[in-house]
């Protein structure tokens, strides 16, 4: 399966996804704050 294959820096995709989740959260926080600002 693709998730066990290596992604960036020879790191398996499923392990690398943790980094994506963490920085995806930062992106989500920014989007959430911007959307809420528009509502005000």
């Amino acid at each position, binding site marked *: 399966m693709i998730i066990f294959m290596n992604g960036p820096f*020879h790191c398996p995709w499923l392990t690398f996804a943790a980094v994506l989740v*963490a920085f995806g959260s930062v992106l989500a*926080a920014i989007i959430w704050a911007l959307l809420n600002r528009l509502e005000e």
Partner: protein
Amino acid sequence: MSPTIIYALVLFFYLASLFVIGVLTSARMKRSAEGFYLGSRSLGPWVTAFSFVAAYFSSVVIIGGGGFGYKYGMATIWIGATNVLIGTLLAWIVLGLRTRALTARLNSITLPDLFAKRYDSPEARFYSALIIGIFLLIYSVSVLQGMGHSFAILMDLPYIYGLLISGIIIIVYVALGGYLAVVWTGFLQAWIMIFSLLLLTAAAVARAGGLAQLFSRLAAIDQGRFVQTPGEWGWAGLLSYAAIVSFGVWGMPQLVSRFYSIKSVKVLKLGTVLATIGATMALLPYFNGAATRLFFPDLANSDQAIPSLVKSSLSPFFGAIFLTGVVAAGMSTFAAVLITAASAIVKDLIRDSFQTSLSAEREVLISRLVAAAIGIIAFLVAIKPPAMILVITGFAWAVIAATTLWPYLFGLYWQRASRPAAFTSMLAGSLTALLWMALKNPLKIHGFIPGIVVSLVWFVLITLIFPEKRTNIQ
């Protein structure tokens, strides 16, 4: 200059800055309970967000998290990722706005006080304050111990010296400056933690010959155990641990108090972004711990992973900065726990539950004395902790979360959530978690899981049977 002198100088400079913050905030603090426990709800987004992160991650996360990384491999960075997503981003979005609005409207400054006013339930105030007071004290012993051990491991100092150096300073600045001192020192401490973890990560990656080399070399040792997810630990262990240390935050009074003390709802949005950015540092201890296996393949004790990496990869000056980061992690958590435990005992138990009338000045004085007393008790217990304390410590988070999490969350969102549901689910959740511990973790499941499951089911059932008729959450 000898490494010991460099370590001592860096630490002295850091501890002196904390002391100065304690004195400055003491001068600025308003002499009232809200002033002492919440900094008069005047805090901006930066200080709130980064002090949240500093209180969240203790030195146990840096040293112990690195130990997990070493033992179970790169898959453990998922723990850090869930800390960011569930423990920080979702906690701020789901709890933050409503908590700020509701606590301001009900004029409540602590979690037990919120229960009392939201549910019109003095018994919920009494019970939750009792649980918070007792179990935060136990948690603080483990945080102190973690700090003492960090000194011992990184600086070759006797454990007791580490306890003494850090313990006394924290007790002084918390008693002097109250919550303002806790958050301002926490703000400084968060930056030291972030900087020192980035420093170590850069050194580890450079030493391995780059990120790609690092992963290839680790895979060559054992791809399945140390690089793949779930790795050595397996799904059950990894997921349940990640859930506890992330979802548990939702019921931790020393962390959610950041939502009451922030200046305004508007500021809270920027705070959410900043806290999420700061929390990403949680990935680094696990990553570095896993990377240490390349350089030290056969450490007997996995808690030695981060100290070994620090000693072999950083110069004494940067090693001293890293030690300061570890100490900062422990101190900020201990200080946050101390002020919250003091608020539960003085404001919720002595003043409100036992209806003792206190002038504002007198309440602040008693709060200072109690904060200092809790710190001293924790310190004395940490000198030679009995085995029982060590056993219960692992459950401190579980028992507190099982008591507070659902009454808090439903109190914000479910209009019909009722007084009998709140109080009895607190009893059911905390007793289940404690009983599970007494039975020595049947099915190898941590007490947190049965504790919050039982309190959830109980809360929903009782609310459906006895729903609240009038409501004060909107």
